[in-house]
Every structure is written in structure tokens, then in C-alpha cells.
């Protein structure tokens, strides 16, 4: 498939009465690790939620694997294979770890591979298997992040959006999460990484886009973006 895994054209979104995204276009090549960086409030989470179908755009087109999914509900985008590890993890604290995982695998697309997905999640995150009966709310920050990723993998996604996976984690855990993301990419999943931690994500990604106040400031190979002096000054404090 030559064209991009995800293609966004002139996307305009207003959220809570404010124009959060005004006319952004970018694409995510197949099996790539593309990063979107920018300060908080720049519209990154709005972008993720619009692609996932949780917010309806005012204008613009979203094309996934060649089909136009603009305006489709999140239940439809998940069935197509768009997975999301949301900002703040959004797990179900009062449900057990096992129930969180079962809910992730409850889609038609992944009903056949439920057992296989479950084994893969336990291989990647053994600690989840130890805590299956525990209420998800009692897990540590890092463990909740593992659960959020595990729950997403249960729906055998072909495309995963990570929204601020490093938020509030210890450096050690951030290292582990980023290693996991890289491992997922190697296993053939396309990754869209949204991060405030600019230094880390640019080091990890092949392509990057800088989002500022709902507009795309810069886009291209991650290495170039990292060397751009505007980015270094604004985001790396150099």
C-alpha cells in the first residue's frame, strides 16, 4: 500500500467554543513511528480524539488505509484498527485488571485472537498477570500505563496513537515505555506518538510534526526537526 496509513487534510476542530485546530494536514507512513510534539494546550489531544472519532471536526478529511473515516464514531474507528493509549491512561479504576483487558478485547475485529493477544500482553507486561484480580485503580502509575497499553493491544490494532505516555512516570519507567513502543513498531504496528517530552520523542521517531496553537509549525524527518534552531530554543531550552 503506497499511500500513507493515515492521511489528515485541512482538519479544523473547535472544542469547548475555542478553535483548537485550524486547518492542519499531515500523514503517517505505514509502519513508521511519527511523533507530534508541542507544548500542552497546542491541540495535540484534540487531534488524537478527532482522529479516534471522539470529537467531530468542523472541516477537513481523515483517511485511514484509503477509506475516508471523517466523522465516524470511536466504536467504528476502533473496529478499523485505530488503537489509542489516551492521555491520563483512562483505565477503569473500579474494575479489575482482568476486566479492563477483557473490555479492550471485546471488539468484533479481535474476538478471534483474544487468547493470543492476552498471552502477548502478559509476555510484554508480566506484572499485569500477577495483578489480574486487583482493581486497576490500586496499580502504580507505571503499572496503569502498562494496563492502558495492554488494553489497547487486546483489540489487535494496526495503528496506535500514544497520547503523552511518559506523563508522570519515573525516568526508569519512561525508558521502559519507550522501549515497548519501539518494540511494537518493529512488530509491524504504525505508531503516532504525541509527547511533550520533545527530546525523548524526537530521538525515537523517524518523522515529526511540531504543533503550535492548533497549527503545524514544522514537519519532516525527526533528525531535521531536532536540529532546527527554533525547536531547540522553544522546546529544548538550548
Amino acid at each position, binding site marked *: 500500500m503506497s499511500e500513507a496509513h493515515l492521511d489528515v487534510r485541512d482538519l479544523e476542530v473547535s472544542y*469547548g*467554543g*475555542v*478553535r483548537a485546530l485550524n486547518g492542519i494536514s499531515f500523514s503517517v507512513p505505514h509502519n513508521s513511528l511519527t511523533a507530534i510534539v508541542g*507544548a*500542552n*494546550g*497546542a491541540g495535540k489531544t484534540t487531534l488524537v480524539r478527532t482522529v479516534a472519532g471522539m470529537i467531530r471536526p468542523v472541516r477537513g478529511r481523515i483517511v485511514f488505509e484509503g477509506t475516508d473515516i471523517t466523522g465516524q464514531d470511536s466504536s467504528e474507528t476502533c473496529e478499523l484498527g485505530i488503537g489509542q493509549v489516551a492521555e491520563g491512561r483512562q483505565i477503569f479504576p473500579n474494575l479489575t485488571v482482568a476486566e479492563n483487558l477483557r473490555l479492550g478485547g471485546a471488539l468484533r475485529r479481535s474476538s478471534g485472537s483474544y487468547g493470543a493477544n492476552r498471552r502477548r500482553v502478559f509476555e510484554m507486561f508480566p506484572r499485569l498477570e500477577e495483578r489480574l484480580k486487583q482493581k486497576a485503580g*490500586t496499580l*502504580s*502509575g507505571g503499572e496503569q500505563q502498562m494496563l492502558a497499553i495492554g488494553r489497547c493491544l487486546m483489540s489487535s490494532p494496526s495503528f496506535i496513537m500514544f497520547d503523552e505516555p*511518559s*506523563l*508522570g*512516570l*519515573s*525516568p526508569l519507567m519512561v525508558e521502559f515505555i519507550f522501549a515497548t513502543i519501539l518494540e511494537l513498531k518493529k512488530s509491524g504496528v504504525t505508531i503516532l506518538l504525541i509527547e*511533550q517530552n520533545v*527530546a*525523548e520523542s524526537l530521538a525515537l521517531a523517524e518523522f515529526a510534526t511540531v504543533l*503550535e*496553537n492548533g497549527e503545524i509549525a514544522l514537519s519532516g524527518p525527526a533528525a531535521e526537526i531536532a536540529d532546527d534552531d527554533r525547536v531547540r*530554543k*522553544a522546546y*529544548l*531550552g*538550548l
Partner: protein
Amino acid sequence: MILQVRNLTKAFTGLVAVKDVSFDVAANEIVALIGPNGAGKTTCFNMIAGALKPSSGSVVLGDEMITGLMPEQIAVKGLVRTFQIVRPMRTMTVLENVMIGAFARTANVEQASEIAAESIRNVGLESKESALASGLTLPDRKMLELARAIAARPKLLLLDEVMAGLRPLETDRIVEIVRALKASGVTVLLIEHVMRVVVALADRIIVLHHGEKLAEGLPSEIGANPKVIESYLGRRAKLS
């Protein structure tokens, strides 16, 4: 010494968000509180401003113990805070929003309207004075949050990531505003991620990491501090 924080601690069930943090803020100083996300910065602010009851420790404003007082009592004593996620009063106009801050200082509507108009001019929102807060863009909402706090005539102003999400042009304007506030005698304690701003404004920097005070000192000292670089600024960054 305008603010004395002693052994501030906050423990939630199974997580100690802030552990034994102590620091002072001298009158008319600008102190920056930095650290990675989730280091406990906002939790500290909430405890100082009275929105959150500390598990232990004390906060003294001027010569008065304010630990455990209600937020409105602390605000009237001159310690006013802004919120990391802005909280505009959506169905009220910009002027009305800022007047609520002004009413902390005066009961007279006329006077409050004057104070509010002046604060709005300070932050450059005068063209949107009668616009509804719900229609403002994010940068304007940040300015509104700032104007509201200024209108309450604080002795000590707590700014929680007021620069986040702003373009360089807008952050420079806020830097000017904060400098003008300092010139007018206001003391400022700010949480900030944008290093450029921290360097431009801060007389002193306090670094929090995992709820504990990692370091405290002048910007140059902090920039060279190995622990700070390793845990927060990332290997390559260096504060000039």
C-alpha cells in the same frame, strides 16, 4: 520574607505526592518552581493556596500562619493563584470575570470596574473587554486568568504554567507583564516548563522531583547541577 513553607507533605492513598518540601520566598522576588510532570509542583501550589489540606507541614504568609485556611481567606490576605488548566467563567464577559478578582479589594462596583479595566489593559485584552469568556482563544484565556489574579491586587502571585501553549510572541508579552508586576512590588512564585522564560524571569529556582526538593539556587547554579540535568533537563540541555 513574604512566604515560608516548612516540611510540606501530602500523601494520597498509596502515593506520596509531596514529601517534606521547605523553601522561602523573599519580598519582591521572582522564584521559579520547576520539575518534570508529576513532580508535585501543582500539589504544592494547591496546599499553599488552601485548595488542598496538607498531610503535614506549615505555610506562613508574611507573619501569619495560613495552613489549613480556606482559599478565599488566603486570597483576601494577598496570596492569589492562577490555575494550570485555565478556568474562565464562560457565560460572563471578560470585564465581569476580572471584576470578580477586583471585588476582593473593593465592594464598590464602580471602583471594581475601573480596577478590572486597568488589569485588562495591562494584559492587552482591552479589545475583547465585553466579549464572553467562552469565545476566547487559549492565549486570551491565559491572559484573562492573569488579569483576574492581578485585579485582586495580590502581594504574592502564584502562576501555574501561565506560559504553557503560548507562542514565543505571547510568552514575551507575559514576561514583560510579570516584570512590570515585580517593579510594582508584587512577589511572584511561578511554575514553568519553558526554560527560556524561567531563565529570563527567575531570581531563584527550586527544582522538585518525585515530590521532593532536589535543588534550590540561582539559575546558573541550577543549570550546572548534575542531578538536575540528569533527572529533568535531559542530557543535552544546559542552562546558560
